């Protein structure tokens, strides 16, 4: 490539990186600004870092600390609950020829792209009728409408990659299908199972519509918690930024760890990447 072209490509990339990362950077700075400096113009890049926003929200009075715990409970619960359902379905779709396979795959994905608000309002009434209003299990169970279809698709792509020969060798050795499943598929697809769990965790973590309708104050999750600072008494930008920064960290770290699996996870296993 010509030198002139190289310079042009780098210049464009620099602008692109500023466009996509600049806003996040600026928002993280907000979390460390004193509330009185949230709006100082011209913008101050260098300032005395202030930790009070995190102190107020997570330590004293720390109203958001329980929300962090709620987020962990709901996301972990939704992920763990989806796994057995998704594993058996993914194994069936990967290993058997059956009628209507394409239809079933499309059915799962149609659930993933359906508008969640359509389901949420009836759930809201159902949960209060069965006495689950505001409980963790209400969120964990209803999140399965997203967690199971997503995990089925992604896990299938990983099980497809486990060579059938290995499984057949186990059958020849006298292992039944179930024994072979636990001795061959589970260990060999384990990286895929972990990757799938991490994505399900992130999607549940970032979900707002289910906890917004189905949680109560003591069980609400962190991303929903950020909304509460939009009070009628004013907007507490420092508090919003501090909680939002804590809420954005787990997904960011998980995506960094996922590395080359990011493309596959975001496309439900359809693009290998």
């Amino acid at each position: 490539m010509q030198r002139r072209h190289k310079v042009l490509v780098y210049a464009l990339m620099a602008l692109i990186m500023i466009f996509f990362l600049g806003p996040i950077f600026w928002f993280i700075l907000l979390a460390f600004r004193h509330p009185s400096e949230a709006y100082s113009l011209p913008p101050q890049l260098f300032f005395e870092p202030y930790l009070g926003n995190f102190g107020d929200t997570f330590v004293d009075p720390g109203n958001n600390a329980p929300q962090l715990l709620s987020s962990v409970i709901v996301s972990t619960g939704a992920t763990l609950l989806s796994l057995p359902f998704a594993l058996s379905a993914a194994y069936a779709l990967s290993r058997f020829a059956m009628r209507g396979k394409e239809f079933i795959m499309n059915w799962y994905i149609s659930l993933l792209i359906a508008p969640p608000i359509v389901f949420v309002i009836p759930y809201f009434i159902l949960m209060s009728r069965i006495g689950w209003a505001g409980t963790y299990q209400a969120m964990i169970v209803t999140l399965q409408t997203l967690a199971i279809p997503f995990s089925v698709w992604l896990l299938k792509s990983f099980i497809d990659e486990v060579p059938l020969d290995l499984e057949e060798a186990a059958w020849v050795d006298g292992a039944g299908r179930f024994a072979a499943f636990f001795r061959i598929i589970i260990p060999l697809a384990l990286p895929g199972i972990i990757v799938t769990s991490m994505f399900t965790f992130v999607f549940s973590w970032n979900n707002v519509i289910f906890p917004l309708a189905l949680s109560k104050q003591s069980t609400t999750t962190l991303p929903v918690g950020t909304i509460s600072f939009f009070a009628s008494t004013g907007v507490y930008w420092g508090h919003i930024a501090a909680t939002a920064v804590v809420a954005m960290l787990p997904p960011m770290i998980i995506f960094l760890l996922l590395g080359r699996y990011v493309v596959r996870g975001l496309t439900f296993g359809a693009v290998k990447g």
Partner: protein
Amino acid sequence: MPKRYTIQRRLPYLLLAPSVIVLLALILYPLAFALRNSFWFWNLQTSPMPLYHSGWDNYRMVFQVTPFAVALKNTLLLGFLGTFAQFWFGMGIALLLHTHLRGMGLMRAALIMPTTLAPVVAGFLFRYLLEPKGGILPWLLGGLGFPVPPQGFLGNANTALFSIGLVDTWQWTPFFAIVLYAGLLSINEEVKEAAQVDGASGWRMFWSITLPLLRPIAAFLVMIRFMQLFNSFDLVFVLTSGGPGTASRTLSFNLYREGLVNYNIGLTAAMTWLVVIIVSVIINLYLFFIYRKREW
């Protein structure tokens, strides 16, 4: 027929059954609930139970009481423009990444950050940046001589929906970029070299070879993203609450307002079914065109 054989034949269906049963229960309940209550007058603020049979009133009210037509127009506009912008912007970035200059790997890894954020967090982020008094974007754009509405971009009826689309584009363009880049990597170099030998120029090669080969991936991405934009709720909720007036109200936000703010369950149920029908039509039309073109 030996017993073992029939079990083997039924095994895949037995393995699928738990997930299918759970999911069917989780989606049939809301749909049946909505279908029944769409013909009943029921407001949770006045009664914990449906009050009386009201025929098709709820369906009529959807159009008379709520800005359903406006919300549908906004939703489709957001879906089409957002998907279009994100696809082409992402494609451009993918082509830049594909130059494989030093440092591109690192930039690709960093680029995904906006996509990892919860949409609510992305919403707050831009609400802060766009704040009419003190936000950095109006300050920058104003300084560059760009006309900034006095109520801010989110408070102005002409720019509110457009701003939501831009924030979504900011969040999801990296997704298109890295997936399309993965697609570019999967294209066989020999095909391109053969075209080069035949004297195809850069643009010609992009339109006649690269783009058609990316078609299956692109079709999948566009479908998913269009529907996610169609379902937009979180961003609307945080950025504008559908305002000013109804300028940026989407179908999802309209449902939320009637259902979980006004507690008008009967009317929400009717609207739910209208949305379900619209969504089914869109998905089926899309699948129809994709499969037809693939055969052709």
